[in-house]
């Protein structure tokens, strides 16, 4: 798939800012980066276009199960962008995790997820909820 996209021009929507430029990335031996990019309104779009063609990455945001908090789910995110093709594999790992309240925002939930060099962190703080833990202990007994 990669070799095909390299031979042809590819249209990509830049997701860096709300303008959402449609940019065309082409293989170009004469340019220093090896690619020529057009349609981008700013420099960031050029870098994004090349990156998107060669090594597309995304920040992943989702939730993990949490015990003893006000809600059942704790929102989490990767602290940097991970390769796009690892997103579903990461989701599998994340969906096996369960954490306990309290949690502080920024706490590392999974270190170096799938060897990406990126951590999964809590994206909010959650206190222990007295009510939830009481209900749980009633159920358990």
């Amino acid at each position, binding site marked *: 798939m990669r070799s095909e996209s390299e031979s042809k021009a590819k249209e990509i929507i830049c997701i860096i800012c709300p303008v959402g430029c449609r940019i065309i990335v082409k293989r170009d031996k004469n340019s220093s980066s090896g690619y020529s990019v057009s349609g981008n309104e700013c420099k960031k779009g050029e870098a994004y276009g090349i990156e998107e063609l060669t090594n597309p990455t995304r920040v992943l945001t989702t939730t993990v199960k949490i015990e003893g908090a006000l809600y059942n789910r704790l*929102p989490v*995110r990767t602290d940097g962008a991970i390769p796009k093709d690892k997103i579903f594999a990461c989701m599998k790992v994340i969906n096996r995790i369960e954490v306990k309240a309290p949690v502080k925002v920024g706490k590392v939930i999974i270190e170096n997820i799938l060897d990406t060099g990126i951590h999964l962190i809590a994206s909010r703080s959650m206190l222990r909820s007295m009510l939830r833990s009481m209900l749980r202990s009633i159920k358990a007994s």
Partner: protein
Amino acid sequence: MKGSDGVKGYDVAVIGGGPAGLAAAIESKKHGAGSICVIERDRELGGILQQCIHNGFGLHIFKEDLTGPEYAERFIDELKELEITCKLDTMVLELSADRHMDIINTYDGFMRIKAEAIILAMGCRERTRGAINIPGTRPAGVFTAGTAQRFINMEGCLVGRKIVMLGTGDIGLIMARRLTLEGAEVKVVLARRGYPGGLMRNVAQCLYDYNIPLLLHHTVVKIMGKERVTGVLIARTDEERKPIPGTEELYDCDTLLLSVGLIPENELSREAGVKLDPVTGGPVVDESMGTSIRGIFACGNVVHVHDLVDYVTDESRRAGRSAAKFVQKSLKEEGLLIKTKPGDGIRYIVPNLIRVDNLDDTLELFMRVSEIYRNARLMVKADDVVIRKVKKMQMAPGEMERIRLDSKILKDREVSVLSVKVEKEGT
């Protein structure tokens, strides 16, 4: 403080503890308001942000790419540091023009309070099926995208397995991705117009990334199923967004999600007699975010639906400062008043009125265009004089436009109407 009539009084009371209410309360405190109370009907502060777990918040205000809950937490922490009172799980039932409020919760019961200044920050609600009128049965499995977002992200329940999404607002696009990540199949996303309502970047990173089909010029004409949704009948739409007979197609699904827009939540404002703008659905406001009733201010989605929370924060800080000034009697209530007027291609402008004496160094005008424009200009006129032209590569109804003007331009002359219109390139 209890007043002589036994009613508890505050300098500033804020209705709603979302990003608008938080920023407004913090800013009032910093500008000298004494006692402040934030009233929130939910179990915690943060408003809708607590369910928006995706990133993309805070790029302007913090120069960081935050998720909704992270963005909210920074303000909640600041509110606590400033020791601002908040009443959670508390609903404002009624507001009157003399700035009394009836509130209710499980710990104080029914209570009447009053405030020198009130800030409306109730946010918005989603349009539902009723607002768009889809015929058919009423089985379970029809949700608004925001309700589904709350279920999944906070309670951890997946709303369905096979999903059809009607509407392409940003919340809908983000939910299409979210559901796919959680293992549901989003069969198709339908836009009634020829372009998606949300941002292109969300179409790219939520639909294209996951190969979710997007059908433009399509709508749902019938919902099938007795107890649970079993399918929906979709059809092509004409230029007026009406379904074209004979183009129907059946999609098998167990859930229909609606992402068909937001409306400012203004029951309280209406009952108090606050004048509303028929286009935005929110209060008519001035440069200080003051409404038509003295001492009642408004900010955030209750005024007009924002797509960037950063702009909500800016606007709400202004409302907070104004309320503090009003309490300290330093807000000007007389002097030259300019009206803003949306011209060709502009649906609305906020603020509606500008009292020149209250302006800081710059004036910000927020507006939305009525259709998609490429390579056009926004032209600002003070009466008949063009005072500003802003080039725009692209403008869409789904993206709010902001123009900053140097207040000097307005202070130096006696302007009565400030208008903005879209001018296409080459005209």
